C-alpha cells in the first residue's frame, strides 16, 4: 500500500527498521559475551 496522502503518511513513512533494531541487540549480546569471556579469563588468571 502507498500511504501517500493519508493523514499519517509521515509517521508511516518514518517507521524504524525493527528487524535491524533486534539485529543490533544481537551485536550487544555478542559484545557482552566477549566481555564476560574476558572477565572469565581475567578471573581465571587471577585465580
Amino acid at each position, binding site marked *: 500500500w502507498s500511504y501517500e496522502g493519508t493523514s*499519517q503518511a509521515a*509517521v508511516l513513512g518514518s517507521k*524504524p527498521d525493527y528487524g535491524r*533494531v533486534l539485529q543490533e541487540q544481537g551485536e550487544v549480546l555478542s559484545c*557482552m559475551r566477549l566481555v564476560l569471556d574476558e572477565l572469565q579469563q581475567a578471573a581465571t588468571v587471577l585465580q
Partner: protein
Amino acid sequence: GRAQVLATLVDTFLEKLVAAGSYQRFANCYRCFYRLQPEMTRSIYDQFISQLQASIKEEIQEIKNEGNLEMLFHSLDKIVEEAKNRQEPAWRPSGIPEEDVRSAIVPYLLKHRSYLQKILKEKEEENRKVAQSVLEGRNKIAELQQLIQARKHAWQ
C-alpha cells in the same frame, strides 16, 4: 377541484345530449310507432334517457374507481394550489432518462459524500491517536536501545 369539474362536464355533456335527442326528435324518428302508441313512445323514450344517463354515470364512477381518480384529483389540486405563486414553467422530464436520473441520484450522492467525509474524518482522528501511540512506542524502544547501549558501554 378537478373532481367537481369532471362531474360538471359529464353532467353538462349528458344534459346537452338529452337536449339534442329530445322527445320531439325521438317521436319524429319513430313517427309510425308514435302515431300508434304515443304514451308508450313517451315511456320508452324516458326509459331510454334514464338508462343512458345511468350507464354513463356508472361508467364514469367505474373509471374513477379504477384509476383512483378521486384521490389523484384531490392531490393534484393540492399540488397546483401550492404552486400558485410560481409563474415560471417548472422542470419537466427531458426525455433523456440518464439526464433526468442524475438529479434524482444527486441527493443520495450528496448524502453518501457527507457520510464518507464523516467516516474519513473519524478514521483520520482514530489514526491520529494510533499514530500517537506508535510514536510513543518508538520513543520507548529508542529509550530501551539507549539503556541497553549504556549498560553495554558500562560493561565494556
